[in-house]
């Protein structure tokens, strides 16, 4: 159940996409989102889909994995679709009391679903192909100018790194604690919502206690390994832009421009 969450996981590889500078990938993801949200009409969506397919095939990320990432969000996708189908005014196709299905509604729902799917798969591709450390390094460098206005950029990125590192550990821990409490007859599956939320305290309390203990131990371990903030820190992998990075960036810019323009032309 909990292991199904693939969002934010990294799958090591050595393809072009894996090797790209994380800053480029972050900017590319940003451009992709811009393209997706300004997309109008089938051509623009087609371009975004083409973009995604191209990058996916180069990155060799398995299609099954991409789809698996959608699973936990299935509910949101269906919910959006239903909402759009029923609540969009326009030419009515079918009416049932206060519910009307419109032509525009169906079209909008379709585009919304496509948009969400493309958005989630596209952005999860970023985390699938970029190690969390690289990702946070990229964010840190991109946000570096903000240091001038006293934004603790390094600290924020270190926090993100650690959070990502501990996600699988804490998921595993949650399952262990749940099993242990189930073994004492705890019931997480039945009853009304309030009862179910109450039933979670035997899991949440030990989980918090353990998370604090871990945080404490980690802080000491980090200090023992000479951590003293971002000042004077060097990197195993200094980021530097290569020709492939510039080409990829140019490619993304062209695609974004095309996607935006296509909506205006067609």
């Amino acid at each position, binding site marked *: 159940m909990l292991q199904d969450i693939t969002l934010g996981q990294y799958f090591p590889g050595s393809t072009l996409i894996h090797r790209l500078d994380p800053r480029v990938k972050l900017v590319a993801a940003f451009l992709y989102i811009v393209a997706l949200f300004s997309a109008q009409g089938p051509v623009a969506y087609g371009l975004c889909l083409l973009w995604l397919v191209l990058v996916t095939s180069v990155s060799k990320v398995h299609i099954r994995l991409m789809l698996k990432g959608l699973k936990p969000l299935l509910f949101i996708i269906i919910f959006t679709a239903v909402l759009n189908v029923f609540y969009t005014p326009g030419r009515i196709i079918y009416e049932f009391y206060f519910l009307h299905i419109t032509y525009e509604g169906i079209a909008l729902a379709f585009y919304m679903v496509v948009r969400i799917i493309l958005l989630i798969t596209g952005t999860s591709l970023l985390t699938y192909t970029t190690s969390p450390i690289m990702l946070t390094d990229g964010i840190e460098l991109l946000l570096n100018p903000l240091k001038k206005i006293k934004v603790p950029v390094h600290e924020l990125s270190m926090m993100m790194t650690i959070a990502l590192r501990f996600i699988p550990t804490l998921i595993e821990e949650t399952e262990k604690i749940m099993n242990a409490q189930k073994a004492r007859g705890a019931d997480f599956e039945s009853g009304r919502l309030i009862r179910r939320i109450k039933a979670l305290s035997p899991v949440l309390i030990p989980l918090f206690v353990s998370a604090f203990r871990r945080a404490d131990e980690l802080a*000491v371990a980090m200090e023992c390994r000479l951590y003293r903030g971002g000042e004077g820190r060097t990197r195993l992998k200094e980021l530097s832009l290569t020709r492939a990075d510039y080409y990829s960036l140019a490619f993304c810019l062209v695609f974004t421009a095309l996607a935006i323009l296509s909506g205006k032309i067609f």
Partner: protein
Amino acid sequence: MREIIKTEQLRFSYQSPETVLALKDLSITIPEGQFVAVLGHNGSGKSTLAKHMNAILLPSGGACYIAGMDTRDKSLIYDIRRTAGMVFQNPDNQIVATVVEEDVAFAPENMGLPQKEIRRRVDEALLSVGMQDYKQSAPYHLSGGQKQRVAIAGVIAMRPRCIILDEPTAMLDPIGRDEILSTIKSLNKNHGITIILITHNMNEAAEADRILVLSKGSLLIDGTPKEVFENVETMKSAGLSVPQTVELLYELKKLGCPVSLDGLRVNECADILYRFLEA
């Protein structure tokens, strides 16, 4: 030989009016290159002592010196921690990064070393713990023993002269335990690194050059494994035990058999028993 760790009348209490002392005027000297095991029951002060060797805790009284550096001197703290690296019990709570080599690079990065030097140290450290093939792996997918070896590599990358391991095998299975023990021994023999191993496992301690036994914050016995384990009664009264080999010899001796207690290893013990049976 030069001494790497020295405590003088070291005293420590977790409460501020010193009602209960975790360490009571402890004076020990550890020469460089030694493999020392520290034994003691839960609450005997083992971990407290370990934390002093890395300036995580500072003495309430007395002093602790690492390679001559006084841990109370705040300006020396980074030099102390670089000289005496620390490995903890739970490997999960000391690995920072999501890729093995990036984790091992953490300390050299904090030291501000140039990129090439970091690369060299990371590769060297992973090789010395036998984890070079897992450079790109996610620690999450490794076994307990492998994770703990990555944690050791993360400390080795600082090129410390001494490593303090606080119950590094407590959470591991026998295979993981053997992995860690042979890694520690090789670091000690091949790289001359001083090892302080805190453990509950008598058979692990038997592999050391010297054993310190703590009880209620004081030093109870100090000697070679053979010397220490001969004190069967004292060990038991301190909530500890002795390897089965020594226990067997001890029980025979209690019955009046003319056997010596220094057969710590299986073969040594068998030799003693063989001679006894032949006689």
